[in-house]
């Protein structure tokens, strides 16, 4: 059980690296879907474990909500936004891809050195998973600032949310149900609004490049 969770936390971290190495907006959405599926799998494994040990089934409900929202609905929504915009591939980065990946790697090193010195959560095996999931949050943040197009930034936001969820999940064996539901509804609203905004930005400026937003005269 514990080995499976270790491997899953590493695979989730790896999916964020693959996301960082991608250029096509279609593959962003696909990689995000895979990452969410891995998170749902983690939640499912933990949910079954908690159900058999303590008799709570709220983690399993959370798992079902993740599958419905992050694996099916939000990628579908983003795909719809993607068909409307004309940018299919991201061309101009602030840094080139190998440097972006190296910076991500340095983020993991940074997380390792900062988290391994803290007490409390530093209880043996939890250590590894918390390092991986906190670096997932920071990589999501870095993904958001490294991309110029709006859909890339939405994906970055969703990766941050995934990171927060998986950190809470792995460190605390499942948060209170009401907190999870609250976060999910917040995120769903944010994505809906952002999706509409992508459409509007595209309509107004013929592009979803964020740099165009500097001149707001329309």
């Amino acid at each position, binding site marked *: 059980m514990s080995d499976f969770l270790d491997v899953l936390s590493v695979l989730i971290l*790896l999916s964020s690296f693959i996301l960082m190495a991608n250029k096509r907006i279609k593959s962003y959405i696909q990689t995000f879907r895979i990452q969410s599926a891995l998170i749902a799998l983690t939640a499912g494994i933990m949910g079954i474990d908690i159900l058999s040990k303590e008799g709570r089934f709220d983690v399993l409900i959370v798992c079902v909500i993740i599958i419905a929202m992050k694996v099916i609905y939000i990628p579908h929504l983003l795909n719809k936004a993607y068909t409307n915009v004309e940018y299919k591939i991201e061309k101009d980065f602030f840094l080139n891809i190998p440097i972006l990946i190296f910076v991500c790697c340095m983020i993991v090193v940074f997380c390792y050195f900062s988290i391994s010195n803290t007490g409390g959560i530093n209880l043996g095996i939890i250590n590894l998973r918390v390092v991986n999931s906190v670096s997932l949050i920071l990589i999501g943040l870095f993904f958001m600032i490294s991309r110029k197009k709006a859909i890339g930034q939405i994906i970055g936001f969703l990766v941050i949310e995934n990171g927060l969820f998986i950190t809470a999940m792995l460190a605390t064996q499942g948060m209170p149900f009401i907190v999870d539901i609250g976060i999910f509804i917040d995120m769903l609203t944010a994505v809906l609004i952002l999706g509409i905004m992508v459409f509007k930005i595209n309509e107004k400026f013929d592009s979803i490049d964020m740099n165009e937003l500097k001149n707001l005269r329309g």
Partner: protein
Amino acid sequence: MANVLYAVIQIFVIIMLAPLVNGIIKKVKAFTQKRKGAPVLQMYFDLLKLIKKSVVVSDVSSWIFKVTPYIVFSSAVAAALLVPVTTMIMPVGFAGDIILMVYILALGRFFMMLAALDTGSTFGGMGASREAMISSLIEPSILITLFTVALIPNSTSVYQIMGSMKAADFPLIHPVYILTFIAMLVIIIAETSRIPVDDPATHLELTMVHEAMILEYSGRNLALIELGAAVKQLVFITLLVNIFIPHDQFISIAGIGAVAISLLIYLIKVIFVAVVIAIVEVSTVKLRLFSIPNIAALAFILSFLGFLQYFILGR
């Protein structure tokens, strides 16, 4: 005495099996394109035919051109000696042999690049410069992968690494091994001139890398280089399957029967990896030459993350 026998078995198995792997990869690719494809044993026929043909050597070339096929082939075979096919037969083993294996293969590649430059043809120089670029990009990730794998048993001997893997129940369910396994797959694809990096089936001057270097060779020399490349590919596949998917713990009997069963399971694993490589090859496109640093960076990061996970995990 037994060691000599083991070495002979090992060399015989690797050389005889190496062209078969290429045949399987080509057959799987043909099936996915709804073709019947060449027979699985086609490469053996090709090699036999090439050995019978006479050799043409350019007037302007030096001795490097003539000795290179022998160096390429013998370096590949020497590297094959260092990677045990099963833990039951152990031809050559000493501390640090995994590093020696990487650089023996690099020696063969170095001479191949020299020979490609030697004849002074345009394609040779182009292929050699591209090969130098790819190999220098991939080399750090090979070494870090092998060092990471060597950290756990605290030994750089392939035999010891395989021994420690045998102790684990499912070696792939482990954060370090799963990352280095994926890194190793990427490395194999880059090292053996497979599709995202180089296309083995093309002779288009804009894209070829490995083919451009061996363009001037003919007859027996070409046969030796092709067989050397196939042996090198099988050495990497052997390293992959034996480090990450060990099988010897499942064999309870001893003696000559155990070795035979072990070799059979080894054959099945090699065929499995060949099919995986073929699937990767048909499902991706060849990258631009300037996109190869991205793949190399990903392979490096995979191996480096594996290295990091070893310390994060603390065991």
